């Protein structure tokens, strides 16, 4: 169940921004991605999630084991908390959303429309979605934006529980989450300028 990433290069807007990224993520491990703004943390996570092709390099694990948590939570404002979670649970073939509601303290909010939630509550609902995916590897992009201290702790507990159960997490963040985690600094992998072959990129 290890994920081996070797010599990965990713591009954004036709410009290669990261190259030669290699790491291994094994079961139970938490890997924090660090690096200045624009270094390519989001781009790398999107590449790993299969939303865009890698310019070069290999990822050993099939996409069926990974779930991607983006900047946006993907919530529908006219659905209630329960309806939002139930939808993702059905898509991923999971039947019970109660553990996800408990883990992020959403029981009191479950009949509220997502439209009426605060930013932090929306974020918690977005993170609760991870628990109904049943995927082993979480690839998260700035998961703690707009969370208060108590909610960050809920999130850290959820990540620890997930890893204790044999999962793994890849988290791009700038703040200290209080997690026992390894750190991967993307700074040294910044790509040198190169030509991707002009207009051909549009037809690949």
């Amino acid at each position: 169940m290890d994920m081996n990433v070797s010599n990965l290069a990713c591009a954004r807007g036709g410009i290669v921004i990261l190259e030669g990224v290699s790491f291994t993520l094994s079961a139970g491990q938490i890997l924090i991605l660090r690096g200045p703004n624009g270094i390519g943390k989001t781009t790398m996570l999107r590449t790993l999630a299969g939303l865009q092709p890698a310019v070069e390099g290999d990822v050993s694990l099939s996409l069926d084991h990974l779930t991607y948590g983006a900047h946006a939570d993907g919530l529908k404002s006219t659905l209630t908390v329960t309806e939002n979670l139930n939808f993702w649970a059905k898509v991923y073939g999971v039947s019970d959303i109660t553990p996800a509601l408990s883990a992020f303290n959403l029981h009191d909010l479950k009949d509220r429309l997502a439209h009426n939630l605060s930013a932090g509550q929306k974020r918690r609902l977005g993170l609760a979605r991870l628990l109904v995916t049943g995927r082993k590897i979480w690839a998260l992009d700035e998961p703690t934006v707009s969370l208060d201290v108590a909610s960050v702790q809920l999130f850290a507990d959820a990540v620890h529980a997930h890893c204790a159960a044999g999962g793994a997490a890849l988290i791009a963040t700038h703040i200290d989450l209080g997690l026992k985690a390894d750190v991967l600094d993307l700074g040294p992998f910044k790509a040198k300028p190169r030509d991707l072959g002009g207009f051909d990129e549009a037809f690949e």
Partner: protein
Amino acid sequence: MIAILIRDLRLGLRSGGGFGLGLAFFLIVVVLVPFGVGPQSALLAKIAPGILWVGALLACLLSLDRIFALDFEDGSLDLLATAPVPLEGVVAMKALAHWLTTGLPLTIAAPFLGVLLNMPDQGFGWLVLTLAIGTPALSFIGTFGAALTVGLKRGGLLLSLLVLPLYVPTLIFGAEALRRGAEGMAANTPLLMLAGITAGVVALLPFVAAATIRINLR
């Protein structure tokens, strides 16, 4: 995939959804035309098939840009693309949901509006039949157009320009089948052409639209 269909129907029916928008537009167009044309019932009966079809087509067009744009803005499209459901299936379900909230209500409402346009009696069956066969094609072609313009800010204008020419064959054969049916002539040929377009579009365009979305999400 049923979950996606149910979610889209629910979103369409709740406040801010597309349901009712197309229907109201259709109603307005068809009610206003007799006022514009004046009290000439023979002329109205003659142009009724064309008006009803053009009205239905424009009503379909109205809610197209919502199909993917809303999901793109709140990030659900990224998550759906990484979910264990084929993107082709997602696209097909979204097109089906669009038809159920737009095309189907139009089809059901059309006979009542046909009365306002003095449709001949034998035309009502044809009206429902041609719309029922033709509007799925409008939803599926429109979904393809929405996939092409996903991610563009205010892509509605471009979407209309891209989709309208693709709607023309459906309009020609749909209105022609209805006109012939209403005048009591044999309408099999245009009806079969209409059905053929719909069948082809429903079978092929979800794959094209899914490929387009994958490129647009990069």
